[in-house]
């Protein structure tokens, strides 16, 4: 019993310690943002690697999720004779929750783990030490463009996910199940509001981008310089980032709705 309490306390302290280190790491990134030179080239490269290369998975999954929503939504609404509100159901679900959250989870798996693995491998092959010896701050050169790109990319991917999802809902609802297209669109447009829903959705995606970006780069940067270490860091990114996204989703939703 006492060992359990001891371990719990130890675990809690380690958690707080890690949180502190993450905060310090984030401060270094912030400082790097305002230090010249500005690494535009690298930033654009990362936008490509994290954003463009994630397009396929985001759009395909967006379409699929929208189609499922269309189906499930139709079946449930049919019970109440309210199928012309399908657009509203699909739209609100996607915009408020599924768009930002699922996009963040997918991006964690694809882009987040790739980032961690890339940085971790650079640690293992002494490339980061090599940079230090050439008087170049590895946080400035390697970490910051990646983190910044993740933040920039998340709202874009989320918006695309939602649009594809709306289309998927349209495909199933209107083409398949026979909902009137005008009703779909008008119930969608009247239910979804810019300030409450769309803006909140984009900000949520931005916050998730910050979380995933920081966690993925931190884990890569602090990974043990062995292949086992890189692998452990990569899985840790996926787990920690996913959980953080879901938990912060609750807090963001609660606060935004106030």
């Amino acid at each position, binding site marked *: 019993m006492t060992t359990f309490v001891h371990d719990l306390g130890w675990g809690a302290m380690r958690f707080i310690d890690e949180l502190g280190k993450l905060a310090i790491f984030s401060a270094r990134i912030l400082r790097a943002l305002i230090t010249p030179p500005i690494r535009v080239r690298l930033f654009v490269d990362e936008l490509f690697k994290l954003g463009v290369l994630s397009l396929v998975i985001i759009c395909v999954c967006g379409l699929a999720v929208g189609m499922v929503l269309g189906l499930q939504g139709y079946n449930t609404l049919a019970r109440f004779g309210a199928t012309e509100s399908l657009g509203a159901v699909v739209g609100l679900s996607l915009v408020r929750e599924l768009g930002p959250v699922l996009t963040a989870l997918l991006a964690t798996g694809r882009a987040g783990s790739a980032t961690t693995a890339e940085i971790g491998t650079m640690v293992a092959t002494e490339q980061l030490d090599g940079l230090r010896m050439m008087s170049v701050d590895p946080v400035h050169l390697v970490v910051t463009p990646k983190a910044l790109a993740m933040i920039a990319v998340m709202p874009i991917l989320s918006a695309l996910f939602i649009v594809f999802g709306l289309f998927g809902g349209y495909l199933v609802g209107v083409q398949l199940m026979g909902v009137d297209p005008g009703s779909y669109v008008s119930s*969608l447009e009247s239910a*979804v*509001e810019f300030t409450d829903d*769309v803006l909140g*959705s984009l900000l949520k995606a931005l916050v998730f981008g910050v979380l995933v970006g920081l966690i993925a780069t931190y884990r890569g940067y602090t990974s043990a310089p062995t292949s086992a270490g890189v692998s452990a860091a990569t899985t840790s990114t996926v787990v920690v980032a996913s959980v953080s996204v879901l938990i912060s989703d609750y807090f963001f939703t609660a606060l935004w709705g106030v």
Partner: protein
Amino acid sequence: MSRSPTRDFLVGLFVLAGLGAVAYLSVNVGGLSSGGGLHLFAAFDQTGGLKPRAPVVISGVKVGQVNAITLDQNYRARVDLDLEPTLALPVDTTASIVTAGVLGDRYVSLQLGGEEATLKPGDEITFTESAVILERLIGKLIHNTDLEKNGEGSTK
């Protein structure tokens, strides 16, 4: 630092697509307006649950949306309307709050009048018909039925 220009192009497309999606969601779906429409307002005794962003309709065609609903100094509901800028509405146009179907959402329907002079931006639509509250209607019906039963004749 040689990177392929294709990459840059794709990144540019990506950003454009994203901004396009954001714009679509904000304006078309979310109803973000640049405020450049024809702004009119009307005062009602009862809005019956009319919501902001509800459509404003002429002859069944959507021509704008409800911007805001506030209480004016006479404790009537002031409904601000944002309409298409090209509309020419006579000064005796009527604004009514009606329901889509029996139990559906409320919206504003405009009935054109016959005057030559048209409403200018910021003008008030003076002829209004408030929303019909179903419960009151039923209440009245019951009240009338009771009066009839008690032999007091019909009331309006």
